[in-house]
C-alpha cells in the first residue's frame, strides 16, 4: 500500500447523529492504515479542516469523500455540491446519506411542525422559549446581516441532491464493511459505479433461526410476547424486517431475540423498501376476509410508516407525508 502516493480523503457529516463518524473508528488500529494511505483533508469531527480550504481545491482533487447524513438544510446541500465537485469518488456513507434514516422520518412533518415541536412545545435542547424565538435565515445586527442556512421541509438523501458513486449501508455501517470499502478503494477494485458496497442478500441469510412456511394471524409488537429463540421471529408474528433488509450485519438484532428494524436498507434493484415489506407481509396474512385482514393490520401495525420506512422514508417513492394544502 505504502508504495502509492498518498491520496486525499474527506469525511463529512450532514443531517446525521454522528454515529457514522464514530463507526469509522470502529475499524480500530486499521485507522492507522487509513492515515498512512490518505491525507485527511476534511473531517470536521476529528480534524481541523476548513470549508475555505476545500473551496480552494481543484475540482476532483479529493480522491474519496465519505459523506454521511441526509440533506436537510441549504448549507448541507451546498456542501454536498461542493464535495461532489471536488471529489473523484463520492460515497454515501451510512443510512442517512443513503436513504434518509431517522432524520428522514421528519418527512412525516413540515418544517413548521418540526419547529413548533422543538421551539414551542419544548424539547431537551430548548426547554423554555417564552418569546417563541425561531431561527431566521437572516438577522440584521449592527455589525451586519447574519445568515442561517434554510431548513428544508423535506429531508433528501445524498443521491437526491448530487450524483453518488457508491453506497455504504447501515446505521451505522459495519466496521468490516467499511474496511472492505476502504481496501477496495485502495486497491482500485471498486464495483461498477452506483453500486452498494456489501452483500446482496437479506438478513435472513445470516439469521440462524429456523424458518418454515409463513402464515400470520396476528402481528405482535415487541413488548407483547417473549419470542422463542429458535424460530423465525416473523413466524411468531413479530414484524421483523430481516426478510427485506440487506445482509451484512450478521443478523445482530435477531441474534439477541429482537426483530430486525431494517437499517441496512433494501437489496439491489428494490425501488421501495417499505413496499417490499408491505407486500411480503400482507401476502402471508392468514385470512381471506377483508374485515379480518383489516383488523389484523390495524391492530398489529398501528404505525405503518414507522415500521416499514423507519430508515428509508426519504428514499421511498413518496419520500414524505402529503403536505396539507395550506402548508
Amino acid at each position, binding site marked *: 500500500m505504502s508504495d502509492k502516493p498518498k491520496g486525499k480523503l474527506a469525511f463529512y457529516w450532514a443531517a446525521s447523529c454522528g454515529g457514522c463518524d464514530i463507526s469509522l473508528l470502529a475499524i480500530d488500529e486499521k485507522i492507522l492504515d487509513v492515515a498512512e494511505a490518505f491525507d485527511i483533508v476534511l473531517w470536521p469531527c476529528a480534524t481541523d479542516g476548513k*470549508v*475555505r480550504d476545500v*473551496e*480552494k481545491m481543484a475540482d476532483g482533487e479529493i480522491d474519496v469523500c465519505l459523506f454521511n447524513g441526509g440533506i436537510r438544510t*441549504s*448549507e448541507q*446541500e*451546498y456542501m454536498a*455540491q461542493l464535495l461532489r465537485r471536488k471529489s473523484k469518488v463520492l460515497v454515501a456513507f451510512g443510512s442517512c446519506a443513503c436513504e434518509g434514516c431517522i432524520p428522514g422520518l421528519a418527512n412525516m412533518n413540515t418544517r413548521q411542525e418540526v419547529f413548533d415541536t422543538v421551539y414551542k412545545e419544548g424539547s431537551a435542547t430548548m426547554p423554555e422559549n417564552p418569546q417563541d424565538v425561531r431561527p431566521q*435565515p437572516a438577522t440584521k445586527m449592527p455589525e451586519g446581516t447574519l*445568515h442561517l*442556512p*434554510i431548513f*428544508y*421541509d*423535506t429531508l*433528501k438523501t445524498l443521491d437526491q441532491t448530487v450524483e453518488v458513486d457508491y453506497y455504504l449501508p447501515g446505521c451505522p455501517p459495519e466496521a468490516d464493511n467499511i474496511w472492505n470499502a476502504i481496501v477496495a478503494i485502495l486497491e482500485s477494485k471498486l464495483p461498477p459505479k452506483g453500486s452498494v458496497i456489501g452483500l446482496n442478500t437479506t438478513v435472513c441469510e445470516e439469521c440462524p433461526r429456523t424458518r418454515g412456511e409463513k402464515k400470520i394471524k396476528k402481528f405482535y409488537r415487541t413488548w407483547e410476547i417473549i419470542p422463542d429463540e429458535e424460530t423465525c421471529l416473523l413466524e411468531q408474528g413479530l414484524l421483523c424486517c430481516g426478510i427485506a433488509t440487506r445482509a451484512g450485519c450478521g443478523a445482530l438484532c435477531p441474534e439477541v431475540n429482537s426483530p430486525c428494524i431494517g437499517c441496512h436498507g433494501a437489496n439491489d434493484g428494490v*425501488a*421501495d423498501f*417499505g*413496499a*417490499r415489506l*408491505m*407486500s411480503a*407481509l*400482507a*401476502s402471508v*396474512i392468514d*385470512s*381471506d376476509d*377483508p374485515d379480518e*385482514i*383489516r383488523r389484523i*393490520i*390495524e391492530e398489529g*401495525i398501528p*404505525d*405503518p*410508516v414507522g415500521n*416499514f420506512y423507519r430508515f428509508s422514508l426519504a428514499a*421511498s*417513492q*413518496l*419520500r*414524505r*407525508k*402529503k*403536505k*396539507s394544502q395550506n402548508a
Partner: protein
Amino acid sequence: MSNENFDPIIVGFFCNWCSYRAADLAGSARIKYPPNVRIIRVMCSGRVDPTFVLKALADGADGVMIAGCHPGECHYIDQNYKAMRRYEMLKHTLTAMGVEPERVRLVWASAAEGQQLAEAIGELVADVRRLGPLHWPQNWDENGQRQKALDDIVKEHEEAMEVSA
C-alpha cells in the same frame, strides 16, 4: 384549481383474465366512461406490487385502480386474495402518509361485467375529482426559497473568502 375542470389521471392495473376482459367488453359494448383511467395489463391482480401503486402516485397519478377477478374466481385459484391483503396493507400505510385512501381502489370485475367496471371507473374518477389533484412531486418542492438560499451561501462565501466557485 377548480375541481370540475380538473381531469385526474388514474393508472389502472388490470388482471389479464377477468378485469382486462371486462374493460374489453365495455369497449365492444360501446359503454362510455371517463377517459381518465389508463390501463396497464398484468397477468393477475396478485402481480400488483404496492411499489407500482406508490410509483404511479409519486410520478403524478391522482389515483390508482387495481382490478382483478372476483374472489373465488381467480384464474390462478386464489391469488386475488393476496391482492386484497396487500391492498388493505397499502391503504393503511397510504392513510398514514396523508394520501386519501379513496384514491386507490381495488375492484373485482368478471369478464362479463363491462357495465359494472365502467360504473366503478366512473365512481373512482368522480371521487378523485372531488378530492382534487394529488400532484405528488410538488410535495417535495421547497417553494422557490431553496435556490436563493444556495445562491446566498455561494455569494457570502465568495465575499468573505475571495475565492471563486
